[in-house]
């Protein structure tokens, strides 16, 4: 009897479960179907680290446009992968997508994005955007523009003035070569307690940061480049590669870098700004100019005096050769997917998101650099507390960009793998060069590689 009762209740539970599920999917279908009446829905996908900013954008856009609902689609991680999958079909595609500029060219070739030239040519504010950032959103294949940039950054060397003074090193610190960097790290190691002398991103867990903020920052300092745009071929430059890997090797095999358990933490950027850097547990960090933003008022860990402790300086080229310093810049843009169903609304949303006020709001929140020339000259922008936009603007003149070609995303993850195997001691620098050459040829095809 009891058994029978249990069975029946179980059955009921399953059935109600199924019905509930059915209800849910019905609802969501109703939400996402293109509405026939006045109600219009704009779907915007965004990485969750910009949640507050996108909440504000949604509220403002809905207030300005009667009858429009902005449906936000949060992406917690693997942003580019998930977004690429969504953009494959009209059923799942958002109307506004957030694109890392390194993937724009590939996404254009995949047919995911729609060109914005017509929209932007009629827009009187488009000439207020920095020329260099416009290049980042222009496709190599057809010369058309596929996104509106909203952020860029530069990489530099953060150094801890307190620890430097304690170790007897000069402040301000202005290294002129890699050797001076390594020497400073050695001095720190010998003269201060339990401190990470030089932090760099070196694991697969830190993804693109490992490829761009460590490998490509260093590699650009050798004067070589990864891609030859005259010949349209990838470059294997043995000397430059060996020197780059040797730098990483000497940092990690001489215990000048972070332990691998710290470096492999995918949240290490937060760990750095909110703990290690605040508590003098690290003396140098190669990272973006935006690090200081996490110490501003209103963030999780405000620290008004941060810049008395942390200086931000240029990263030298290998031997100080011309032009003396180097940096890498990334960037983000807002794009309209090819399968978007509300392209006009999407264009309006994007224009609003990068207007003068919103752009200023954005850089104030994130510490990224502005892409608008009118914001860049504002005193309010340059003199923001806990920021270093004047130094950053200087770095921008030395900066380099990632090769925006089809194979870059795959090559980049491969670079992360090789860097990790050097940092963990699994490969010597010479082995790493060999691995790099073989892997590159395997990924892009032997005929697309030249040796220098």
């Amino acid at each position, binding site marked *: 009897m009891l058994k029978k009762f249990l069975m029946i209740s179980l059955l009921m539970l399953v059935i109600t479960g199924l019905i509930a599920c059915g209800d849910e999917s019905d609802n969501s279908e109703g939400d996402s179907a293109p509405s026939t009446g006045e109600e219009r829905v704009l779907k915007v996908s965004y990485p969750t680290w910009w949640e507050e900013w996108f909440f504000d954008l949604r509220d403002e856009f809905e207030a300005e446009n009667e009858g429009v609902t902005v449906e936000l689609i949060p992406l917690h991680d693997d942003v580019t992968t998930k977004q*690429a999958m969504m953009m*494959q079909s009209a059923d799942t595609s958002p109307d506004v997508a957030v694109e890392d500029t390194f993937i724009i060219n*590939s996404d254009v*070739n*995949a047919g*995911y994005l729609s060109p914005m030239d017509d929209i932007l040519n009629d827009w009187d504010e488009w000439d207020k955007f920095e020329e260099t950032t416009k290049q980042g959103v222009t496709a190599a294949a057809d010369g058309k523009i596929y996104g509106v940039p909203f952020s860029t950054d530069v990489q530099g060397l953060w150094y801890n003035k307190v620890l430097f003074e304690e170790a007897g090193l000069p402040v301000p610190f202005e290294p002129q070569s890699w050797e001076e960097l390594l020497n400073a790290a050695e001095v720190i190691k010998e003269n201060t307690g339990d401190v990470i002398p030089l932090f760099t991103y070196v694991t*697969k867990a830190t993804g693109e940061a490992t490829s761009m903020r460590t490998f490509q920052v260093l590699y650009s300092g050798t004067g070589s480049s990864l891609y030859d745009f005259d010949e349209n071929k990838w470059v294997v430059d043995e000397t430059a590669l060996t020197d780059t890997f040797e730098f990483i090797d000497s940092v990690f095999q001489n215990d000048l870098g972070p332990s691998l358990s710290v470096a492999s933490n995918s949240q290490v950027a937060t760990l750095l700004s909110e703990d290690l850097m605040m508590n003098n547990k690290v003396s140098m960090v190669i990272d973006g100019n935006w690090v200081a933003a996490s110490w501003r008022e209103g963030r999780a860990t405000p620290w008004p005096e941060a810049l008395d402790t942390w200086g931000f300086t240029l990263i030298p080229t290998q031997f100080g050769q011309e032009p003396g310093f180097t940096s890498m810049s990334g960037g983000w843009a807002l794009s309209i997917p090819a399968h978007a169903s509300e392209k006009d609304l999407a264009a309006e949303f994007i224009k609003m998101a990068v207007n003068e006020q919103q752009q200023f709001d954005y850089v104030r929140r994130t510490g990224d650099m502005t892409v608008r020339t009118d914001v860049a000259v504002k005193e309010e922008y340059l003199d923001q507390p806990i920021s270093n936009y004047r130094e950053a603007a200087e770095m921008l003149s030395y900066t380099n960009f990632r090769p925006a070609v089809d194979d870059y995303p795959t090559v980049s993850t491969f670079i992360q793998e090789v860097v990790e195997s050097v940092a963990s001691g699994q490969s010597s620098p010479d082995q790493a060069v060999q691995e790099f050459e073989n892997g590159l040829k395997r990924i892009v095809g032997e005929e697309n590689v030249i040796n220098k």
Partner: protein
Amino acid sequence: MSTENALTNKRIKNNNNSMLRKTFFFLLPSLVILLIFFIGPILMTFLFAFTNMSLTGAAAQNIEFVGFRNFVNMFQDPSFKSSFITTMVFLILSGIIGQQILGFLLAVLMQNKNKSFRKFVGGTVMAGWVTPEIIVAFTFVSFLHDGGTLNQFIGWFGFEPVSWLFTFPMVSVVVANIWKGSALSMLMFQSALDNIPDSVNEAAKIDGANRFQRMMRITIPMIKNTIFTNLVIITLGTLGVFTLIYTMTGGGPAKATSTLPIFMYEQAFVNYQLGYGTAISLVILVIGIVISLLYIKLLKTED
């Protein structure tokens, strides 16, 4: 007489036919599900493994058949070789040696013990098995990480903390997988051991066979089929372990715990090469089949 016979025969045949129809009818839902979720994807795997399908870039738009290029690339890729070796080490240590032998020992040692003891030990071992994989992974991460339970514990005895997941990555994931999976082996062996008639063991005892001889000559031969089934289940399960390793170590540090499923995931969804990733999954399938055939040959089971 004969007409009656023929009639009965016909009736039986009719009965058989309607039985067949009924069977088919009742099987239909599961057949449809199998077709949609299992056979369909497998066929598609075969198809896509020979293409350059990609998640982004020009190849996302124009999928082309590239013949065996994915497989040629794979066998030239040192990462594939190291992933293959890692997978075998993980399989042998955590699956074949760990889960199989530990499960067997647990079952043997629990035999003929009192009921509450059996319940307690059985329940403890089962805890790992009923816990979802992702939760097991997080449990082990918080147990093993730098400030985790294990380091706190050894700290009481004056030992320095160890970064277990980085110093002993393979050992860490192997222990986690054994903890998670041993219960299944234990259950299978328990029921197999219970099915051995006492009389056989008693007869051997009277003939003067010691414990070890009884184990080798009677127990193991009599549960051979269970050993085989268990081996196959564990092998196929362990070959596919992804969540546990990916959460605990992400396949790292470097490639120390990068098994084939992790390698596949990285190629397909991090490097955006879906065709290549599919080819790797096909190879995993083939490895599973080959190992199962090997077991059949080695154990020469009848069924």
